[in-house]
């Protein structure tokens, strides 16, 4: 694998300093135009998202909106921590054109490649 979005960054120092975050489940695809990253963050709305591009790293942070449920918890499987995951970016990605959308707890990041690196056909006269 070359340096692409699928490589995850987990430096030890970062791990020690971070709070207790959940790792969102992700799907990552590469097409000829760029990468698509989908991350599952149920309980996070658009306003709870923080996406940071720094150097060749992208950090996805999802803050859950607080849940108010009065009453007694009978059964728990969910963990109500925030989400965080960091990825290395392929240098071919055009950082200025990264876009994101959030739909029912699924973040979709579009990471287009810059024009120079896209495969192109050259017409021969």
């Amino acid at each position: 694998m070359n340096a692409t979005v699928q490589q995850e960054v987990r430096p030890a120092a970062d791990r020690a300093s971070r709070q207790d975050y959940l790792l969102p489940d992700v799907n990552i695809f590469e097409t000829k135009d760029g990468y698509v990253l989908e991350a599952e963050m149920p309980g996070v709305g658009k306003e709870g998202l923080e996406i940071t591009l720094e150097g060749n790293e992208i950090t996805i942070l999802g803050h859950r909106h607080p849940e108010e449920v009065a009453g007694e918890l009978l059964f728990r499987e969910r963990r109500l921590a925030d989400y965080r995951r960091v990825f290395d970016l392929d240098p071919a990605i055009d950082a200025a054109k990264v876009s994101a959308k959030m739909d029912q707890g699924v973040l979709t990041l579009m990471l287009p490649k810059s024009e120079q690196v896209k495969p192109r056909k050259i017409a021969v006269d």
Partner: protein
Amino acid sequence: MNSLIRWNRPDIAAWPGFGRLTDLRDEIGRLFESPLTELARTSQLLSGWTPALDLYEDKDNFVVKAELPGMKREDIEVSLHEGGISISGERKSEEKHADAEVYRTERFFGRFQRTVMLPTPVAGDKVKAAYKDGVLTVTLPKTEEAKPKQIEVNVN
């Protein structure tokens, strides 16, 4: 649907949440510890997707919250039956990446079903469900008979 285990109030414990790796262990643990889940749910081990859910109770309602990110409302089914509630549905895979190279596939697509047994009857006609930010919240009001009552006794 039959539950083979008598309902007891379970001890509440937060799952450690190491994700997928602990699923099998959790499943086995639940078989022995949790009377709230249907035994038939072990079949989910093979199919893959077991959405996490919480169950709350206050004096008037039970509240079930289930994490179902990326669903369409019409693909979620909530049904009541004697003794419990079932949440099922299907998350359909999108075809748009047919020609793409796949790097990670951690998300699950397909059918799921979860069943929760409730310790007291609920008013079926007053059940409400809401789906927001990938979390389904089902509010199940208790029947009048099932609500705790206070009986005043005159002391002479």
